[in-house]
């Protein structure tokens, strides 16, 4: 009696997990499958599950129909500066908040965490007005500059991490005549490499996936990033579905490669950010 119950539970567990995994994977596989088909084949009933004629041409057409290579270059440009800005600013801020004792730091920490509760979209219109005043609409500035001012999620994460490094390290360095910037660069940075990797990876993901920012701030097609570039394939008159799916696949490819090459950082970033809230 006990044993059959056990086996039943195990079978049920695997059944749930496997069907969950299938549900997660099928849409993605369907995306890749559709990216290799002609629009004609996609609109045939009964549905063709595996295309007989694989059409790699879709992937070439992605680059000829719209300036997709330019979208790619723009995205990489914006992402690079965002990562750079996030790495410097958040480490500086987190160091100041955790390892120097001065009045007001607790308040600043709380204020920073408080911004996590603000719905980001509420600020978008005033930010648009603000950047319009600065005369920087249709440039990359609004998409890059804010990254140099720290991000509450990263600050929180790095603070948690820096608290685990003994203070004696800093003190010993002071004995040798070091100052704060030197300590951050020479002592803290090497120790914080895993946490910095998490910051870099998540900033990459945030910026790569950002849709609303580019939508508001960029007007010229030449300046589009991938996220809004994909939309240029969709039109009310004619949507080249196969090419659109190829463009979508090309957009997620770097993310998938990054994920599989740095999986442990993804997991540790998620759990650090999600648990200690």
């Amino acid at each position: 009696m006990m044993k059959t119950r056990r086996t039943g539970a195990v079978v049920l567990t695997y059944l749930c997990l496997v069907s969950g995994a299938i549900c997660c994977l099928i849409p993605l596989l369907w995306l890749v499958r559709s990216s290799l088909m002609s629009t004609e084949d996609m609109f045939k009933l009964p549905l063709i599950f595996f295309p007989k004629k694989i059409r790699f041409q879709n992937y070439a057409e992605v680059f000829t129909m719209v300036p997709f290579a330019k979208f790619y270059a723009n995205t990489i440009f914006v992402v690079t500066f965002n990562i750079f800005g996030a790495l410097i600013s958040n480490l500086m801020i987190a160091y100041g908040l955790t390892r120097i004792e001065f009045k007001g730091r607790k308040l600043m920490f709380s204020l920073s965490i408080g911004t996590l509760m603000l719905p980001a979209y509420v600020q978008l219109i005033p930010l648009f007005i603000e950047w319009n005043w600065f005369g920087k609409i249709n440039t990359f500035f609004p998409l890059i500059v804010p990254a140099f001012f720290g991000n509450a999620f990263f600050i929180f994460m790095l603070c948690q991490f820096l608290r685990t490094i003994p203070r004696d390290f800093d003190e010993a360095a002071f004995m040798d005549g070091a100052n704060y910037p030197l300590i951050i660069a020479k002592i803290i940075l090497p120790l914080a490499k895993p946490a910095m990797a998490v910051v870099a990876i998540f900033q990459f993901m945030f910026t790569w996936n950002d849709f609303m920012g580019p939508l508001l701030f960029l007007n010229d097609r030449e300046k589009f990033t991938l996220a809004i570039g994909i939309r240029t394939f969709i039109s009310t008159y004619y949507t080249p579905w196969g090419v659109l799916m190829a463009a979508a696949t090309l957009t997620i490819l770097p993310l998938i490669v990054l994920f599989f090459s740095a999986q442990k950082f993804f997991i540790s970033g998620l759990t650090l950010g999600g648990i200690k809230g």
Partner: protein
Amino acid sequence: MAGAKMGFNTKRQTLWGWILISPLCLGLTLWVAFPMGLSLWTSLTEWDMLSKAEFVGLKNYITIFTEDELFLKSVRNTLYFTVLSVPLQMIIALGGALLLNTQVRGKRAFRTIFYLPSLIPIVVSSVMWLWLFNSQYGLINYLLHSVGLNRVQWIDSRHMVIPSLTIMNIWNVGNIIIIFLAGLQGIPKDLLEAVEIDGGRYWHKFRFVIIPLLSPIILYNMIVNMIKCLQLFVEPYIMTGGGPVNSSLSFVLHIYNNAFKYGKMGVANAMAWVLFILTLLISLVIFKTSCHWTYYEGDR
């Protein structure tokens, strides 16, 4: 004390502290405080960004509640989406995490697969689901039809469009599963064993150990996801444009339309403030009621 030991006086230490966190102070001013002030001011004016702003007091706030029928509709749609999505996400994520926390083989592989959808940019998943939901040539209807069920109109139907977006949203529940799983792995084994010794079943472990210890994480994720759901935008923007018949017009989409389509900056900002206050209120209610069901180790 530490400062003195380091050969630094407190004044210099304070100075360095502020220098290091200066990006944060500037950032909070430039990208949070100033925009919010600006938004509040704009919400009290009539302004199309071209001519001079004209102060109208609370008129915009009154207009959106009395004259704009779409506003209340967008609020209803968004709340419907949130109320449908958040509990389902929590339940499915918790279920998934509990299953993964048993002695199954291939735990890492499952974890990886479940996380994959969370990686996909919303634009890409919108385009992908637009195709999957296609009522004639979409995979979902094809599968339903081939097992003898009726085709569903999904995003083309007024009644199904929000549930369809919810299904999409649940598809990328993987990151919450991973967060819950990490929480489950942090539950001390001796507590679970104590239940077994007392003759408790799995249900008792779940009810008296797992749920209480996991409750702060559940609370946090519930709030974060609620805020995300209330800001639903990209999916209806790409997939339906708010249709059919405005039944997927979300709050943020309506704000966006007012600001950038109709050039009503004042009205749009007033709506943004209503959204902000609504979010704050719901968070507050969840927090206030949470003391009945969350458990913090420090309270013992």
